[in-house]
């Protein structure tokens, strides 16, 4: 991609900024060639990614280097877009909202600073990936389990800061953050929670500290750069029991969500899990053309063939019970009593006991196999996810399912969905899979996405996380009292970042000087 300058910098000022950046991090860590810029584009962009082009990237290795870069960026008005490892695939990856922003790549900050197996936590830097931490725990034989998302290529901290999801009892990853170290746009270094005390001994033991707790202010925001974080890890349980459940009919979602919500709310089922349709399996293990070459969305008769071929249901999910053998056997009975009368057959549980290979357990094990779905259409594949938050109510889920499926059909896209069950909510993750280089298809994908935003908002549902192309659209749906939350966010933004240099447009939050860029 050709260079797009930051909006408030001349070519000379930008060159001067890069030279001064190089003086801080070293020339090799200022990445400013055409090829470098291309490597930071959105790998799943709907098209060539030319609507979100970084001007360059710079990769510091320490807090002090970040502070020095911020001083230069403030002086020369160079906007920075922090990424941990840049693998936020489906949401823009490493690319910034605003073209001309310089990516601040924290991938070189990859130290595992502490792992405490007695109290179950780690302190890590943003460049630490799921595979890195998993390997470290295995090599050191530390009996702590991770919560791992479907695509585990990315950063542990980055995922938690985007409210990513894993599938163990610690699967609400943001809620397991305990203590952040943050560089503010001014360059000042802050520690949240108990870490605000010099010599604190309980930073990773208590999430709140004294007075207002700021941690959530640095989640999905552009108020600071997180340079290290405490994260709670799950003590390895004594045993697990796992069952895979298949529901044959689409409308089974009604009774199933109600029963599962009761089990989740009472902590019989303690983990977040994907309640997904048949396309989850088919899109990983096959390509669309093997099933259907016609136009429009996949017909239901194709769904029936896929279900028969893979011996799965319209909906499929896995439940795992974690803990002492006696306790989880008792909970398994409760699960049986809830589900078996509807299923008309017995559930089969696979058991695992500590000491056995963990591949047979309910542990979070990093993998990237789900990325296979972008190959569904062939060509240069990509996906975006529309994920409104809903109450875990069977009738609402049934209605939502029919409504969204009809919208997918209207726009000719294949319906890939899950009603991912949280503790008291559902993340209704709807993926739209496309061939990036098919303009008609990406146009349909965008039209569908915009209609989903409007339709969900009309029904009272808002997204938990979104792609960089739709952050303004989604932020606009959080409109109570004439957008009072957005006004509050931008008041804080202007106070903390008066020159507007940190991630303009992130989550729809724009600094004063750049509000004209809002789409």
């Amino acid at each position: 991609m050709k260079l797009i300058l930051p909006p408030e910098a001349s070519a000379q000022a930008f060159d001067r900024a890069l030279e001064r950046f190089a003086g801080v991090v070293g020339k090799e860590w200022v990445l400013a060639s055409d090829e470098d810029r291309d490597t930071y584009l959105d790998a799943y962009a709907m098209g060539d990614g030319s609507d979100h082009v970084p001007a360059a990237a710079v990769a510091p290795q320490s807090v002090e280097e970040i502070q020095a870069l911020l001083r230069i960026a403030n002086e020369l008005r160079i906007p920075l877009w922090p990424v941990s490892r840049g693998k936020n695939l489906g949401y823009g990856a490493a690319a910034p909202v605003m073209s001309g922003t310089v990516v601040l790549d924290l991938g070189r900050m990859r130290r595992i600073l502490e792992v405490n197996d007695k109290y179950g936590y780690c302190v890590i830097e943003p460049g630490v990936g799921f595979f890195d931490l998993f390997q470290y725990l295995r090599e050191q034989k530390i009996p702590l389990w991770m919560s791992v998302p479907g695509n585990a290529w990315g950063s542990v901290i980055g995922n938690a800061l985007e409210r990513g999801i894993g599938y163990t009892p610690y699967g609400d990853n943001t809620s397991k953050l305990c203590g952040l170290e943050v560089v503010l746009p001014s360059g000042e270094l802050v520690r949240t929670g108990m870490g605000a005390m010099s010599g604190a001994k309980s930073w990773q033991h208590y999430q709140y500290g004294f007075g207002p707790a700021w941690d959530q202010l640095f989640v999905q925001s552009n108020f600071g750069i997180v340079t290290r974080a405490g994260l709670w890890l799950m003590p390895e349980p004594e045993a697990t029991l796992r069952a895979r459940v298949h529901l044959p009919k689409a409308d089974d979602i009604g009774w199933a969500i109600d029963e599962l919500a009761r089990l989740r709310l009472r902590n019989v089922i303690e983990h977040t899990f994907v309640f997904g349709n048949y396309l989850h399996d088919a899109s990983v293990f096959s390509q669309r053309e093997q099933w259907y070459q016609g136009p429009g969305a996949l017909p239901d008769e194709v769904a029936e063939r896929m279900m028969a071929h893979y011996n799965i249901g319209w909906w499929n999910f896995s439940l795992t019970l974690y803990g002492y053998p006696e306790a989880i056997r008792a909970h398994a009975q409760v699960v049986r009593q809830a589900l078996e009368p509807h299923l008309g057959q017995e559930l089969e549980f696979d058991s695992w006991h500590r000491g056995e290979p963990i591949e047979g357990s309910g542990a979070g094990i990093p993998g990237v196999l789900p990325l296979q779905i972008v190959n569904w259409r062939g060509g240069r594949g990509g996906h975006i996810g529309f994920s409104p938050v809903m109450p875990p109510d069977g009738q609402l889920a049934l209605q939502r399912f029919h409504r969204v499926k009809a919208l997918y059909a209207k726009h000719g896209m294949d319906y890939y969905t899950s009603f991912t069950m949280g503790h008291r909510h559902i993340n209704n993750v709807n993926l739209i899979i496309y061939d990036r280089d098919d303009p008609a298809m990406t146009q349909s994908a965008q039209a569908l996405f915009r209609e989903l935003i409007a339709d969900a908002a009309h029904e009272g549902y808002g997204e938990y996380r979104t792609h960089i192309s739709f952050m303004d659209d989604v932020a606009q749906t959080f409109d109570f009292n004439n957008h009072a939350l957005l006004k509050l966010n931008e008041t804080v933004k202007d106070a903390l970042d008066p020159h507007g240099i940190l991630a303009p447009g992130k989550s729809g939050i724009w600094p004063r000087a750049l509000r004209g860029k809002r789409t």
Partner: protein
Amino acid sequence: MRIIFALAVAATLLSVARAAELTPAQVQGQQLFRARCGYCHLFGGTGTIMLARRLGDKDSLLENRADLDAGYIRTVVRGGLRSMPALTRVEVTDAELAAIAAYLTRAREAPAQ
């Protein structure tokens, strides 16, 4: 997926055993390949599956290929290919990429026996 992971571990161990046949530079390239590319390009990985669909099983594991050259590897890594994202010079430095390429092209570069 869990079975695939176990097989990938087994494949890794097998290859480590074979590492004794590699030069020190190739061993370094192998370790880097596994650390940076192995997420997708070991046995059972998503890249391996995609390559198998396109080229057949025989050519799906990059470590077994004899037809790759360093220029092509560099082009794919920095530019991406089909559904494979490009990798930045932070994730894989130029020096690391050269070492990986030297490992993956070892069969092509080896003198005739």
